[in-house]
């Protein structure tokens, strides 16, 4: 995988001007578009095709703040150990398991009034999870500001410490997202989650 920040000429920061990102995307799209290179000699034509594919991936990744953060983490800490990759707050896993069991119970409950009660509980859980998700967004904002302040700084420990917190936050977010999609599927017949 490439360094998408470098590819699009941005420094490795978590805050990014969405308008500027789109401008650069359009500029580079024109530059690399295969239609403008049909008369090029090989390998130039092949290169432009590859570059425009990288560009699309780079744009999609940098546009989404969570994807952007994940990409930055991967660039800054390429040898992130397996144990870190899986790290989440200890109580969360238990909570996720309990909620998943409740969702499954609601799905298999045949008694109408009990089913309604369980669905009500799910809606409460959903509201709580959405609040938590909002909190995580706020925390990500704070981490972004913090990172952008020390990104060029020399203190390796402070950077590592921040990246550790960022990793835990992104992992936690993935669980909440899966739970929310599962609840949506159970309550409203939504798509559920693509594993």
């Amino acid at each position: 995988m490439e360094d998408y920040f470098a590819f699009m000429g941005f420094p490795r920061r978590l805050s990014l001007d969405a308008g500027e990102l789109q401008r650069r995307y359009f500029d580079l799209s024109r530059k690399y578009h295969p239609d403008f290179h049909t008369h090029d000699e090989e390998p130039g034509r092949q290169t432009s095709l590859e570059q425009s594919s990288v560009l699309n991936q780079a744009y999609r990744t940098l546009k989404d703040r969570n994807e952007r953060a994940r990409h930055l983490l991967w660039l800054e800490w390429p040898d992130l150990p397996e144990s870190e990759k899986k790290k989440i707050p200890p109580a969360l896993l238990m909570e996720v398991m309990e909620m998943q069991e409740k969702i499954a119970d609601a799905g298999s409950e045949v008694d109408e009034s009990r089913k309604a009660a369980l669905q009500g509980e799910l809606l409460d859980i959903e509201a709580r999870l959405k609040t938590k998700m909002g909190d995580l967004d706020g925390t990500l904002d704070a981490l972004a500001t913090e990172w952008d302040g020390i990104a060029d700084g020399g203190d390796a420990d402070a950077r590592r410490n921040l990246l550790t917190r960022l990793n835990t936050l992104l992992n936690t977010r993935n669980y909440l997202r899966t739970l929310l999609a599962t609840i949506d599927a159970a309550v409203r017949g939504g798509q559920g989650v693509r594993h």
Partner: protein
Amino acid sequence: MAYSEKVIDHYNNPRNVGTLDPNDSTVGTGLVGAPECGDVMRLQLKINPETGVIEDAKFKTFGCGSAIASSSYATELIKGKNVEEAAAIKNTQIVADLNLPPVKIHCSVLAEDAIKAAIEDYKKKQAQAHPAEAVA
């Protein structure tokens, strides 16, 4: 994605789904997760403290077909084995036996992690229940 028949069989008819008493000192519980997809897996083993043999195994997994198949297969694999043999099981064996596609290898890692976590939990409980004795 093309799943092997074995994966589909374990997904449609998962073996050993359920729970064992988590407060039983001969039951080890392993709860693990895969943050990249939000999957959770709980594996419980009932181990005979005299012989160290795994007499029962139950699991519950919320995740994709491969995660469910991996954990279902793992319970079949470890029943009747002793703790050391079970701890030595590698995810690569599960991948090979179930013929999992490369993007689903992390599901088998989850199963291996769950086995290890359950055994660790059992050993910890045994050490607490019989502080003076060495644990099998």
